[in-house]
């Protein structure tokens, strides 16, 4: 599949934003009000909104994006839009109360947490629902999206430094633990992706053409000599070539550096603000991971080309 930069940016940043929103909603220790609260709310909301805006860049008609809220009964993409807008609207009220009245409304926070999880889940289901892309068509896809969102959110929340006072080492270790678990899930996903192939679903050029009863099928001549929308969008090959190297880069940036930095900060008792660096590195790693998510995925239509 063609790895569109706008969609990679969207899934990674809005994932981080909604991950942070979910933790804010759960009441993790953060500035109590005023400027500190404003900065935290701005980062969480900003990441989520920036991602959503970027996702409209790949639309042919962004001015009609509002129409996407209508089909929530049948479409995961529509559900995602609805969940995102409801969650962000609720957060608007929550943030007002938090910034100006130093009051984090518990029940509203809980709704925001649920809404954030639902948003990330529906984003992942846009991909996980597609039978045409066996790599994605597994419940491990939403698991990875949810855990990566949580891991990004935890590192962000912890880097505000308010975990210093509350709780012992165990609480602080959560940040490192969540990052490790998320990558554990991704390793499982990569493992499964090797088996989730078109062939494993019983699809081949023979079933695509129905000519398997005669013999082995091979494309002799393409419909047109040039490229077309389908070959550009769904029969994309670039990036697969360096898949192993890119996986390693994703693991170093996304797992090794954040985990190493996290443990160092905790072991040496350094300020938790340094975890912001771990967050930046994780996001960089996730950009590579998300690029591969698209570039490595093979679509059923490739059987015709």
């Amino acid at each position, binding site marked *: 599949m063609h790895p569109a930069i706008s969609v990679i940016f969207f899934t990674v940043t809005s994932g981080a934003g909604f991950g942070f929103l979910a933790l804010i909603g759960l009441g993790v220790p953060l500035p109590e009000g005023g400027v500190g609260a404003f900065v935290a709310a701005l980062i969480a909301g900003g990441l989520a909104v920036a991602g959503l805006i970027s996702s409209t860049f790949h639309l042919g008609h962004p001015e009609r994006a509002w129409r996407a809220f209508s089909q929530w009964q049948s479409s995961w993409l529509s559900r995602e839009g609805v969940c995102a807008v409801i969650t962000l609207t609720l957060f608007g009220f929550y943030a007002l109360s938090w910034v100006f009245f130093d009051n984090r409304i518990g029940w509203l926070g809980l709704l925001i947490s649920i809404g954030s999880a639902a948003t990330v889940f529906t984003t992942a289901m846009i991909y996980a629902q597609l039978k045409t892309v066996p790599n994605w068509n597994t419940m491990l896809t939403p698991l990875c999206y949810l855990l990566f969102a949580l891991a990004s959110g935890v590192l962000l929340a912890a880097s505000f430094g308010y975990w210093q006072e509350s709780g012992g080492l165990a609480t602080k270790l959560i940040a490192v633990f969540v990052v490790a678990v998320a990558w554990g899930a991704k390793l499982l996903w990569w493992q499964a992706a090797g088996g989730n192939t078109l062939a494993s679903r019983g699809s081949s050029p023979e079933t695509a053409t*129905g000519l398997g009863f005669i013999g082995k*099928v091979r494309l002799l001549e393409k419909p047109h000599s040039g490229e077309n929308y389908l070959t550009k969008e769904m029969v994309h090959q670039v990036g697969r070539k360096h898949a192993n190297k890119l996986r390693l880069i994703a693991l170093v940036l996304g797992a090794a550096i954040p985990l190493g930095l996290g443990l160092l900060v905790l072991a040496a008792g350094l300020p938790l603000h340094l975890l912001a660096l771990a967050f930046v590195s994780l996001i960089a790693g996730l950009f590579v991971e998300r690029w591969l998510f698209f570039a490595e995925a093979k679509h059923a239509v490739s059987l015709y080309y």
Partner: protein
Amino acid sequence: MTSLPTEITGKKLGLVIDLDTCVGCHACVVNCKEWNTGGYGAPLSDLDAYGADPVGSWLNRIHTFEVTPEDAPAQIVHFPKSCLHCDDAPCVTVCPTGASYKRGEDGIVLVDEEMCIGCGLCAWACPYGAREMDPVENVMKKCTLCVDRIYNDNLPEEDRVPACVRTCPAEARHFGDLGDPNSDVSKLVEERGGMDLMPEQGTRPVNKYLPPRPKTAPAVEPKTTKAKKLDAKGFLGWLDKTLEKL
């Protein structure tokens, strides 16, 4: 509505494509583009049409496959491919806006281009590559089964079929109601063992493909004429033997 229709008449308009008679002339492709660029919805655009790297949106494309049996020489099959107007059309249910829909009255899958946001998800959901984004209008284009021809009273009756069917010189394309077991197309499918493409995808396509008829198996030992053994005498015989020895 992006849900599949619940009120259906049982009518399933579609195509039956005969892979035995298709000669791969691309006339259906050209006539499809010609009709549909001026008919339903936005024109089917081309970019760099006369340049080095032309691209454009087409609703029908012909692939050519080589099929190699284990015990016989390879054969060529021309393979026209367009929307199959599936009963369980995944392109319809993924649409976030309701632009992509399947009609209850005749089963045709259409795109309301005024509502399409051009997200491309329906093209991802289709295993057959039946949908293409128009590079100029940025809306999703697909086969309409020439909905603006088949019900058009202003056209002579013989023209009230999809453009691809009307133009096919080999009569490899047939149009009709596949929901009616007594229709000509249904009988054809019955007689010739019409098949679904990628049935494992669970899309339940309406369009059917008629498989190529079995080829006459070539003789196992090809008949060849053996060269006559030269048995000349005299000077020619001497020359033959001498040249042989060289």
